């Protein structure tokens, strides 16, 4: 590799496969994936149900190891890491947003957002301040003491996003983040992700079924039957104008 080569991509998948089960019953959920993601990209992953999008996201999120192939995160081989080492990597670099929000019930928004910092051993005053800032960034300033039960779905997903970004992660992984939300709420969430991607330089990897939501991404990756079928920049990017307008924060 020459000294003038461009900076190494943040994420590199090389020939990644994932096999579930053994022998006859074995199922190849991923059949050899190669994917590079550069820092600061906003990638949407699309594809039919069962095409391996979530499986790929779990591997990208260091929640699971590939059956074969290599996963390099910042040049480090993730597939060689132990369970706890992967947990440390997630703790340090990754934020997660789930379809089902996954907030702790009967726990205030503030405490929910503080959770990842708790595992980092951040001291209380910094934790409080960071959580308040994150909630502010997702437009929920003043909602710190509400519990998930007292928040709408859209607000809950905002809290979840605040929780994902409170650690200043390099990457936010979102598997169908708008799957449980109506169109209006979904668009707000997408605006927010675009804003975080732009303003904070956070790399966003997002799985979605909806073309409307994928339209917010700058790059579209298409999965079919465990393979990448298409990978191209988004020609008609949505939400760019909207995000140019001053947002919260």
């Amino acid at each position, binding site marked *: 590799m020459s000294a003038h080569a461009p900076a190494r991509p943040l994420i590199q998948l090389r020939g990644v496969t994932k096999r579930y089960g053994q022998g006859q019953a074995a199922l190849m959920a991923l059949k050899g994936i190669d994917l590079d993601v550069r820092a600061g990209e906003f990638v949407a992953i699309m594809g039919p149900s069962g095409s391996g999008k979530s499986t790929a996201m*779990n591997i990208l*999120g260091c*929640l*699971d190891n590939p059956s074969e192939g290599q996963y390099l995160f910042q040049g480090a081989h993730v597939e060689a890491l132990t*369970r*706890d080492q992967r*947990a*440390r990597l*997630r*703790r*340090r670099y*990754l*934020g*997660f947003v*789930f379809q089902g929000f*996954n907030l*702790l*019930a*009967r*726990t205030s928004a503030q*405490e929910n957002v503080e*959770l*990842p910092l*708790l*595992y*980092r*051993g951040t001291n209380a005053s910094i934790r409080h301040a960071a959580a308040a800032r994150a909630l502010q960034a997702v437009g929920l300033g003043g909602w710190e003491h509400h519990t998930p039960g007292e928040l709408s779905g859209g607000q809950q997903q905002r809290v979840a996003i605040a*929780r994902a970004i409170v650690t200043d992660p390099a990457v936010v992984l979102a598997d169908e983040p708008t799957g449980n939300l109506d169109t209006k709420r979904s668009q707000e969430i997408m605006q927010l992700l675009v804003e975080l991607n732009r303003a904070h330089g956070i790399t966003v990897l997002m799985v979605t079924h909806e073309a409307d939501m994928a339209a917010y991404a700058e790059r579209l990756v298409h999965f079919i039957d465990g393979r990448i079928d298409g990978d191209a920049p988004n020609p008609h990017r949505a939400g760019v104008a909207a995000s140019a307008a001053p947002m919260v924060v």
Partner: protein
Amino acid sequence: MFLNALLLALRSIRRNLMRSFLTILGIVIGVGAVITMVTLGNGATLAVQAQISSLGTNLLMVRPGQRLGAHGAGGAPAFTETDADAIMAQIGGIAAVAPEARAPITVVGNGRNWATMVIGSTNAWFKTGNWRLASGRLFEDDEQRAGAAVCIIGETVRREIFGGTRGVGEQLRIKQFSCQVIGILASKGQAAMGSDQDDIVVVPLHTLQRRVVGNLRVATLLVSMQDGTDGTRLKAGLRQLLRERRKLAEREDDNFNILDTQQIAETMAGTTKVMTTLLGAVAAVSLLVGGIGIMNIMLVSVTERTREIGLRLAIGALERDVLLQFLIEAVVLAGLGGLVGVVTATGASYVMARAMGVPYLFDPAINLLSLAFSAGIGVLFGYFPARRAARLDPIEALRHE
């Protein structure tokens, strides 16, 4: 990290207050039972020891009848005063022998009535019973011989009849005769199980025999041994002498029994100790049951919170963090149960000790031990559910339900 785990555990307990309370109930009851049992047991042991030692140590109580104890002379002849003299004269190692007869009588003095126990004996009686005079004097020899109308009264009788005044020199009516109070006994206080040892009037044996009961029977011989005497040998000698004096044939059984207070003390102390241990063991079993309750609820909690655990693992909790969280939750639950148990037990054993008339002794060792034990139960029974939580696969856990 540890503090954070503690914080998380407390939050989760707070989120499930009612369930947490029900979970710790087993431990509360277990700890409460252990402490209450042991505290009451210790109190009872102490009470028994106090009562025995107030009877006098190295004391033998000889009574007619085969059966041990105060009741059921069973037609066996009573003793006489000469038996006491013979024992004193013929058996070595004896400090004092007191022949005793008693009668429950309502005494009158200072315009008041008081139902009490009138005891007829000699000056030796005070020695055998470890009594001391608070004021006044003992009987004179000629008073004892002649059966003079004099009496020495216990503190309770003095208080009830004479109230604030000293009492010595006052007159006290016992049935149809009036006697002069010549001494007041120093108080021994409440005996165990409620009997009041100070509720007595002591008169010379002859006085009781002639003026009250009208016979020469002696119901009990109190024999006080000298310190360092071989009790077994002395008892054997005493038995032989009494068999001869009561003209028992070789084949006949004893028609009297000898009670050794030392022996009673040891037996009773032993019994209460066994009881305490037994009750403590039963209570400890309930602690164990409480522990199983904690394990059960922790397992339920782990299952219920599978998604939450998945989330925690996904956002960067290490296995150790989750293990610690659930372990601490179990320990905090159990410890909380222990704490509530200690407080409850302190109240309960105080109230019960008073109701049972045994002294209340706060035993810090058993309280600390119970607390530590309940925390230990938390670790023991919390470990398995906690490990199960920590080993969960975050992806599976997040998909749960």
